[in-house]
């Protein structure tokens, strides 16, 4: 049998993401094995473990998964903090850990080790795709982000990529993570942008609660000729986009965008099973499931970790987002992102991201940071 451990934050504030990720993983395994849940005649056994979003528990659970349950491959977790605590365990037990969907760059950067792969996108991919989508000559951009590593790293990557497109950054605004009142931040941005020339955009990088977009939009940035821009999000959060039709940005996944058989199957099956469309992290989870099956098939089994790693390095496989490829250097999955524009459509109570163009994996120069 093939033992796969899904170690993720089932309970806690990211519960909704976790559920999506898990459904995706199961669908991925199912699709890749044609519903048999067997690879080369060996049964897949899935072990679930709940990190409770706590790094120490996540670490203990991964040890348990590798040590006591003898899992061949582990997948997870949702939170970057937990992921970082888990990385050394993979190295110690010499087993593969596929990180999905935690995003921190350092997972495939300075804290990386050869047993770590990531199917989810990293922060740089997010930021750079947005830069590619928004940038261009004569574009002037201000950023608004949370004042901690996630926000600052995101802006740094965004800035770097944006400069290549010929656009300029006019102002960077950082606010505390738990900010609820954005009046002051907006005033500062307006004050700094009011007298500039060009196509003015305000790019917002935000994770978690609070809703800067809606509140800043309510302060009528168009008075100063400023347009709001932001990346994609889970479906529930797209409701906030409804207030800002025409907003552009880059997204990781929206179920109507990718056109390929896997995605068709995913959307259809998801509607059948859950009566709702697949979301952000469903797609990611599925990509991880597909990668596992593909890798085991190529390595001819899951017992030999070195063979697995060898099979996975540089491996290209099909996902609901089209082909992905594990980059050899840092095991980060290269993938397409989607430049979108928000539209309002009948029957949908959220702002629909409509594809402007697909940003292929070669178009983005994602830095390798694990050296």
């Amino acid at each position: 049998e093939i033992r796969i451990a899904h170690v993720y934050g089932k309970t806690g504030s990211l519960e909704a993401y976790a559920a999506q990720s898990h459904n995706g993983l199961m669908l991925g395994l199912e699709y890749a094995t044609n519903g048999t849940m067997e690879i080369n005649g060996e049964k897949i056994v899935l072990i679930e473990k709940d990190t409770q979003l706590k790094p120490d528990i996540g670490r203990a659970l991964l040890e348990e998964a590798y040590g006591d349950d003898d899992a061949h491959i582990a997948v997870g977790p949702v939170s970057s903090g937990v992921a970082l605590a888990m990385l050394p365990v993979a190295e110690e037990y010499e087993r593969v850990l596929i990180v999905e969907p935690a995003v921190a760059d350092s997972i495939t950067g300075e804290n990386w080790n050869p047993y770590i792969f990531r199917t989810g996108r990293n922060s740089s991919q997010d930021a750079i795709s947005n830069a590619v989508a928004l940038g261009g000559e004569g574009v002037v951009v201000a950023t608004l982000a949370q004042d901690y590593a996630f926000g600052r790293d995101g802006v740094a990557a965004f800035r770097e990529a944006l400069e290549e497109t010929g656009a300029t950054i006019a102002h960077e605004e950082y606010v505390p993570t738990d900010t609820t009142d954005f009046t002051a931040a907006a005033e500062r941005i307006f004050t700094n942008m009011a007298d500039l020339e060009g196509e003015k955009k305000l790019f917002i990088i935000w994770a978690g609660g609070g809703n800067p977009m809606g509140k800043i939009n309510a302060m009528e940035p168009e008075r100063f000729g400023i347009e709001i821009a932001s990346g994609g999000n889970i479906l529930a959060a797209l409701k906030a986009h409804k207030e800002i039709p025409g907003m552009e940005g880059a997204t990781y996944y929206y179920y109507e965008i990718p056109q390929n058989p896997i995605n068709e199957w995913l959307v259809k099956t998801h509607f059948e099973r859950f009566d709702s469309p697949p979301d952000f992290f469903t797609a990611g989870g599925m990509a991880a499931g597909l990668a596992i099956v593909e890798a085991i098939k190529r390595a001819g089994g899951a017992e030999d970790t070195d063979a697995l790693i060898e099979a996975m390095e540089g491996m290209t496989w099909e996902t609901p987002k089209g082909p992905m490829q594990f980059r050899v250097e840092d095991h980060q999955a290269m993938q397409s992102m989607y430049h979108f524009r928000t539209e309002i459509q009948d029957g949908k109570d959220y702002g629909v991201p409509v594809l402007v163009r697909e940003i292929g994996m070669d178009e983005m120069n994602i830095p390798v940071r694990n050296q």
Partner: protein
Amino acid sequence: MIVKLLSGDQPRSVLLTLLLLVTLVCLAGAPFLFDGVRALDTAARICIFIVLAASYDLLLGYGGIVSFAHTMFFGLGAYGVALASSHMGRGFDALLVGSVSGTVAAIILALLIGLFSLRVRAIFFAMITLAVASALAVLVSQFSGLTGGEDGLTYKIPRALTSANRMGEFMGTQISGKILNYYLVFTAALILFLLLLRIVNSPFGRVLQAIRENDFRAEAIGYRVIWYRTMATCLSAAVAALAGSLFAIWLRYVGPDTTLSFEIMLDILLMVVIGGMGTMYGAVIGATLFILAQTYLQNLMGSASEATSALPLVPDLLNPDRWLMWLGVLFILSVYFFPTGIVGRLRERRAS
């Protein structure tokens, strides 16, 4: 001899004595009695949290001081080891330097907090400590270059203490550095606990109790209350920092969520209160039960949910994903049924 070790503070209840003995035996023999890395990890965690809860009991149960900054001291100890290990490289010297500097930092901070703010009303002192603790958490998140920010720090400890160090077999169990590491944690925890037990039963401990009861009168019979309170704060901070160092050595990872969060603060509070405030042994019982519940409640609920799957609604409520709800219920019930803590309850039974 035993009386001396326990500082004359015997458990004073047969059942309690039994419980404590069982706990001691299980912890002392954990690597051989249970198998699996998870069990060992749980045992180590129990040792560490016993010390942490006991140090908090010194402050809360004996000193009557409500502080929400205890995790901050815990964190200082942990970050001390983490920073030393990541900057000095793996090695015992790093562990030592880290623990000592973390502890010293904790004592200094405790001294400052104590002298400046122990004069205000209890509830406001609590709020001030909450503020200071959250300020420190903000600092940790801001100086991510040094502290790893929200993501925390991962580092290496001496090879002798990791599972890579294989030392042969004993009683059917592979003896690895990990087991050595466990005994380091266990021994240190035991010593620290006995030390705390001695302190609360010393003349100093008695004065603390008097101050808790009636600080006004304690001052009037010649005790400088501020100094005693500050001393208690420093002692408990120092022990908490050492517990943090042990945690860092055991975990080889330090981050805000594992050492600084308010959630852990509440866990400690619950351990002390369930166990029985002002009893020290309460910390042992409270920490053990709490960690066991935290670790195994979900598994338990999983089986319960399956067992009841025929019934309506019940399996939903017993769904392992809802384990937090039952933890909440546990919070409520334990305060309800053990108003004086488990230790208090056990001793009462004997008295009547």
